[in-house]
């Protein structure tokens, strides 16, 4: 990717021309600025630091406001992020400021995953900007840019060196966001200790390959002051919203029995330097770096991950559109295949069910036949029995008839005999 513009090289085929009189396009920067005033600005700061290290107080002090933050507990099971958006105005400039604080950072017993919610948050903001940018009907000019422009990393004022949590976290974040490390609660360190501490921190960052934000040196107007400030990193800050009377003025300060630490006194701490650098001199550059470096990197990685490439297999430039169309084709073909598969399966199942049912039907049929035969057999047997019975009956009744006849005959014979006897 092209590095930051030093001076715009004249294009080939473009001739420099001198004007014979006043044309008036020198008002262009003014026109641009006026438009921006109408639109307003957006600035998003992420503050990472342990609970109680003074993030909220510093934000309040930086922006001269009470952002109504309440103290967090030390017993959060996981690191969370809390984002708050404010609309600030100074003279004719409207700023939509979003301050994101970590909650519970460094409080867990196991800090291995502490950085992950932060990384996720930053990625989510990039993702939502990318989504907006890729939409067909998009409104980038009205879009509320929530990408993190500056990350203030609060270092504990141990006076010795960075904690491993600090190194790990900053290493994970340095390619995603502009990191500005600050030494918090700097009034607990003496001047000489502070100097050594700063050197130690910077050398540790360098030796671990952590890329913190460097104030830009390409614009002559601010190159000098930025170079000086780059040498004062990390800024040792003290935050306070309370005012103490010093001399005949009321200043923001922290009052101790042994003296008063004045926030805006450059001999006491680097607060003024931080405010100058963060807001007055480099706010626009922070926003630009976020957009042209960090966001582009995210976008590139995300799109490559999704399978888009700029050049095809023959190293011919392939447009995003072509890739998308190819993918779409793929997807539709896949869809068709799946549909066919499903259809086939359905047909199969139906066949199976059909044959099952047929089988069952056949079985029933055979059972029925069997029963019918049995029944017929039984009926035949019964008929036979009946016939026999009938025969018996008829033979019996014949015999009875014969017997009766015989009896009757014998009776009449006896009767005759009797009569004959009588008659004798």
């Amino acid at each position, binding site marked *: 990717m092209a590095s930051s513009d030093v001076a715009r090289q004249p294009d080939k085929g473009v001739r420099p*021309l001198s004007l014979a009189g006043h044309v008036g396009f020198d008002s262009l920067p003014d026109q641009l600025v006026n438009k*921006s005033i109408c639109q307003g600005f957006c600035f998003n700061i992420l503050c990472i630091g342990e609970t109680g290290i003074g993030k909220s107080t510093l934000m309040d002090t930086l922006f001269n406001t009470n952002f109504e933050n309440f103290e967090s507990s030390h017993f959060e099971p996981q690191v969370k992020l809390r984002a708050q*958006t404010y609309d600030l105005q*100074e003279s004719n400039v409207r700023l939509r400021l979003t301050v994101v604080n970590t909650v519970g950072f460094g409080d867990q017993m196991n800090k291995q995953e502490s950085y992950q919610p932060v990384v996720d948050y930053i990625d989510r903001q990039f993702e939502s900007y990318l989504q907006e940018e890729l939409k067909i009907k998009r409104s980038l000019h009205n879009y509320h840019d929530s990408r993190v422009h500056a990350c203030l990393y609060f270092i504990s004022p141990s006076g010795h060196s960075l904690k491993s949590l600090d190194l790990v976290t900053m290493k994970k974040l340095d390619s995603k966001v502009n990191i500005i490390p600050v030494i918090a609660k700097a009034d607990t360190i003496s001047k000489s200790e502070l100097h050594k501490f700063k050197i130690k921190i910077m050398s540790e960052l360098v030796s671990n390959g952590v890329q913190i934000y460097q104030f830009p040196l390409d614009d002559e107007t601010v190159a000098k002051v930025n170079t000086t400030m780059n040498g004062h990193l990390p800024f040792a800050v003290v935050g306070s919203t309370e005012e103490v009377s010093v001399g005949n003025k009321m200043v923001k300060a922290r009052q101790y029995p042994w003296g008063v630490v004045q926030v805006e006194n450059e001999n006491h701490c680097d607060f003024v330097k931080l405010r100058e650098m963060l807001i*007055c001199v480099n706010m626009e550059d922070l926003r630009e770096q976020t957009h042209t470096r960090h966001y582009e990197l995210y976008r590139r990685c995300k799109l490559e991950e999704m399978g888009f490439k700029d050049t095809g297999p023959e190293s011919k430039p392939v447009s*995003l559109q072509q890739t998308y169309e190819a993918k779409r084709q793929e997807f539709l073909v896949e869809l068709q295949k799946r549909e066919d598969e499903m259809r086939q399966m359905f047909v199969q199942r139906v066949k199976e069910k059909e044959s099952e049912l047929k089988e069952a039907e056949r079985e029933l049929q055979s059972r029925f036949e069997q029963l019918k035969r049995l029944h017929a057999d039984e009926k035949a047997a019964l008929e036979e029995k009946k016939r026999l019975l009938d025969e018996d009956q008829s033979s019996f009744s014949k015999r009875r008839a014969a017997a009766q006849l015989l009896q009757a005959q014998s009776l009449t014979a006896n009767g005759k005999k009797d009569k004959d006897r009588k008659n004798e």
Partner: protein
Amino acid sequence: FWLHSNCLEPRNSPALNPLYSSSAMSEAVVPDAMVSPAVGGLHGEKAGGPAVDFSYVGIDAILEQMRRKAMKQGFELNIMVVGQSGLGKSTLMNTLFKSKVSRKSVLATAQEKIPKTIEIKSISHDIEEKGVRMKLTVIDTPGFGDQINNENCWQPIMKFINDQYEAYLQEEININRKKRIPDSRVHCCIYFIPPTGHCLRPLDVEFMRRLSKVVNIVPVIAKADTLTLEERDFFKKKIREELRANGIDVYPQKEFDEDAEDRMINEKIREMIPFAVVGSDQEYQVNGRRLLGRKTKWGTIEVENIAHCEFAYLRDLLIRTHMQNIKDITSSIHYEMYRVRRLNENNTVMAHANGIPEHHLAAHEM
């Protein structure tokens, strides 16, 4: 040094006032919309002694930062001039930018013949004024309206404009993008109306009707020194009526007015268009001053005198007041419309290729 003065000098700017605040607390955190007005900010207390207001934060310094960045990057402007030959397009460009920016002035072997078909020729210049650098590209369209049969003469021009949008779109959707996408999109198209004094010709109407949908059109009455003031007013009124009757929206378009203030300013401009202009790159002595003008037997027409012609209004509109606005409308409206059309076009093309009825396609994102 300005930096230190911020810290020490008393400031008159009002204290920082938070207007609204909102908060959202959750695992996945997203800034919410505004909730309720917050407490007022701190003010610097003065207890006797010099009045020092320490509540200045320095947010308004961002304007200065923006200005610096803009100056460093420079600006780009692409203007297209369209009109029949002989209407003074090149001269007007030279007058507007007070230097020889037109193609004819640049090319040593200027072919004076009128080309057989419409050509699109662009030439770029690096100009600088008071530290502000600009790359100005003037796009000329020789041959427009000069043929016997001028049907479809807008096509090459339309194609050129769309090609520039296409080039920008292709750059924008690359995976590896340039830090600053070179902007070759036509920001403004100046259309030259011949000073007949009657009404618009069918060619004018057709061209402006089609192109006002893709680019900002600024119509001007060319060679206005052939019209008397009454003729000019009549002509302008007629033109405005005809534009309205044909639904042609020229710059500044009514629908893109952002607020009441904009509308007021733009209404005044809309009542004056088309500007009746006279161009000249020759200077003459008038009343002891050297002025750009055209010298005739009956007098000298001063180009920058608003009593003579409306060149100054055109220059002010295009350059001094509305240049940024013209560029913004090109990029946020015309370009976006092209992009939407183009991306939707792909969806329908794909659909037809696959025999999928259009209503099956969800609102696809890229």
